[in-house]
């Protein structure tokens, strides 16, 4: 038992803090801070700076650029990244396809894709969910039929985040419809410029277009783009989804957002004081920061307890509470904005400050955090079954 960080970890933290706040351009971090929308170029630029300094894909095997860090170090890296408003390395590259290729792909495929993936020379999209296969992913219907040296792919994927920017898409397809649904799935790497592949944006309730439908009409994919073995991709998908639980709590982001909210509250004069003196708001801040403290400590405890690298089942707790707290902070921010929160479409000439204008879209957008990446219902199922034996 020890309260303080070890000297090494503290130094590690200080170095990262220094790096993130000096080497990643301020204008990029400002966009993140202000809940704005990053351009493709900004995301790529940021990730390349990280990659040049070995900070983009620390969880990968060392031969492909990974760092062999302790879970505590990974935790610190995540928190500091988020606190400094550095855009996180694109999850599809860094946390999803990269580790899968490193684990399951042929040497040839690794060499072809991994360095380009770490450096964002390839922007990866994810082709997993389908309109009728959400939480029940294994019931996916997109078909791939072997035709000589190619697979011919037909079907539809959806919820493809940032698919509009994608170069390649790693895709789960059904290669054997005759067997149990989990047993007939393969993973293909598909060039998004392939004929017959079409990306259609989905407008979300906050007006943003961050997700897409991806349609495949007789898309021909060379057989060498098959990851691992045919019909074995359910294992790869489980590996991918179970991977990288550190950071799932998003403590750093929420902590930064809550500190911002305090500034907002203190900037609003009411009577003799500010909204931060209003017991309704001050108690709400205390409740949230106490829950956030509990979450942070739990993340640290899980990190500390998982020295063997296996995810602690408590990671479902992190996802559940972490997503709820993200939502709670955006809700608080709308309430701080008050009547000004209606001015969500106003431009920079508005008398309403940027944060207040963005507060409701952010609140609406954040509803997704309890749905995606394994909905909170799925997490409750995991906890009740796996941990409580129910």
């Amino acid at each position, binding site marked *: 038992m020890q309260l303080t960080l070890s000297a090494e970890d503290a130094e590690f933290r200080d170095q990262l803090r220094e790096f993130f706040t000096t080497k990643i351009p301020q204008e990029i971090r400002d966009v993140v801070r202000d809940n704005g929308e990053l351009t493709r170029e900004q995301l790529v630029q940021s990730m390349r700076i990280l990659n040049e300094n070995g900070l983009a894909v620390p969880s990968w095997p060392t031969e492909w650029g990974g760092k062999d860090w302790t879970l505590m170090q990974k935790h610190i890296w995540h928190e500091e990244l988020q606190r400094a408003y550095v855009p996180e390395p694109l999850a599809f590259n860094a946390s999803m396809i990269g580790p899968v290729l490193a684990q399951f792909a042929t040497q040839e495929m690794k060499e072809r894709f991994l360095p380009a993936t770490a450096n964002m020379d390839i922007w990866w999209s994810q082709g997993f969910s389908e309109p009728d296969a959400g939480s029940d992913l294994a019931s996916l219907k997109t078909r791939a039929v072997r035709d000589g040296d190619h697979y011919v792919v037909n079907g539809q994927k959806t919820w493809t985040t940032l698919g509009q920017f994608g170069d390649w898409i790693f895709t789960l397809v059904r290669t054997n419809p005759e067997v149990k649904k989990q047993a007939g799935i393969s993973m293909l790497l598909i060039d998004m410029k392939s004929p017959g592949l079409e990306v259609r944006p989905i407008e979300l309730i906050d007006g943003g277009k961050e997700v897409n439908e991806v349609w495949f009409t007789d898309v021909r994919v060379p057989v060498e783009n098959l990851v691992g073995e045919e019909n074995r991709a359910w294992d790869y998908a489980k590996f991918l989804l179970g991977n990288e639980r550190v950071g799932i709590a998003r403590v750093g982001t929420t902590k930064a957002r809550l500190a911002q909210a305090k500034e907002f509250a203190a900037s609003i004069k009411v009577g003799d004081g500010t909204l931060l003196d209003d017991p*309704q708001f001050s108690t709400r801040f205390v409740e949230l920061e106490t829950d956030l403290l509990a979450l942070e400590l739990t993340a640290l405890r899980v990190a500390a307890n998982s020295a063997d690298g296996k995810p602690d089942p408590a990671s479902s707790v992190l996802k559940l509470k972490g997503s709820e707290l993200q939502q709670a902070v955006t809700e608080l921010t709308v309430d701080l904005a008050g*009547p000004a929160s209606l001015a969500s479409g106003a431009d920079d000439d508005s008398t309403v400050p940027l944060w207040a204008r963005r507060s409701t879209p952010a609140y609406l957008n954040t509803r997704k955090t309890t749905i995606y990446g394994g909905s909170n219902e799925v997490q409750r199922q995991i906890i009740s079954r796996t941990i409580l034996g129910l």
Partner: protein
Amino acid sequence: MDFNYDDEQQALREAVRGLIGKAYSDYEERRRAVAADPGFSEQVWGQLAEMGLLGLPFEEQYGGMGASAIEVGIVAEELGRVVAPEPFLTTVVLAGGAIAAAGTEVQKTELLGGISAGESIVAFAHAEPGSRWEPTASVVTATDGGDTWTLSGTKEPVIQGARADVLIVSAALPEGGTGLFVVDPSAQGVSREGYRTHDGGRAARVVLDGAAATPLGAAEDRTGVIARVLDGARIAAANEAIGLMEVAINTTSSYLTSRKQFGVPLNTFQALTFRAADLYVQLELSRSVAVWASMVLAESSTDEFVAQAAARASLRISRAGRQVGQEAIQLHGGIGMTAEYSIGAYTSRLTALDHLFGDGNHHLGLLACRVGDYAELEPVP
């Protein structure tokens, strides 16, 4: 005590539902209406006028129907059911309410007549930079030029402020207090910058720079009028929220019965159906308070009792609206996040209503200051 709608009220509901429910029977129609300026259908607005709904609460001599808050609540609820974007709440209830309460005969005849006929969109320009739902103004100030008044300062956000044909503007009076003024938005010294709001509506920043203004009625302190008019709008908004919540819950229930996951419909999962049941409880409790508050307003109660009713309704519906809005999306899953599907618009509108006239905690704080003044809260004055 009688909660039953009479036959005329039932007929009104059916007529409104016939019109507006038909106009927006397909959610795509509503999406189209909010996509282009002014963010609502001028055609539907005209139909509402033809049916007499835009003059509903005004006296007959001003082109109105002389109806009570019960009827206003019915219309608001029906508009809520289809997330109709027409500015009934802000133009008829709020701006119209202010004109009816404070205007001269001539102003009432002209302005209420214009609203009733569907010829004039009137916006109530009251919110200011830094304001938090107070019934007073301080940023916009009025100057008495003898024969004429001028206003200076900024109002934002003003719902439908860019489309509006007439502005009713609150402003700090030279001698103290807050007055109400009629402003022609095309007059010199008025500039407007319109924009979309997240709920599909429109708002504007209205900058006044020595703009000519006519006092609404007398140029005297209208804080009491503004407070009462805001309370009326809160109660109408509560009724709109009931319509929104009811359909949001029904839409969610339908989705749960039709959508399959893991080979079975979602309503097989008790953890989901019980949460839907909790939403229904929220709805029914809120409906009772919304209808009650309408009755309180309809029966010419004291300003104090109306304020009490408006605050209770705002609080109750704020709590319910958040739970319903959030859970409706969550119970849908991913599809609930998409703009093509209807449910997000319900959540967005509930969020807008919650912050338009004071959210739950705002009213909670006001009510809490007086909790020691009485032993029991009685629904009857």
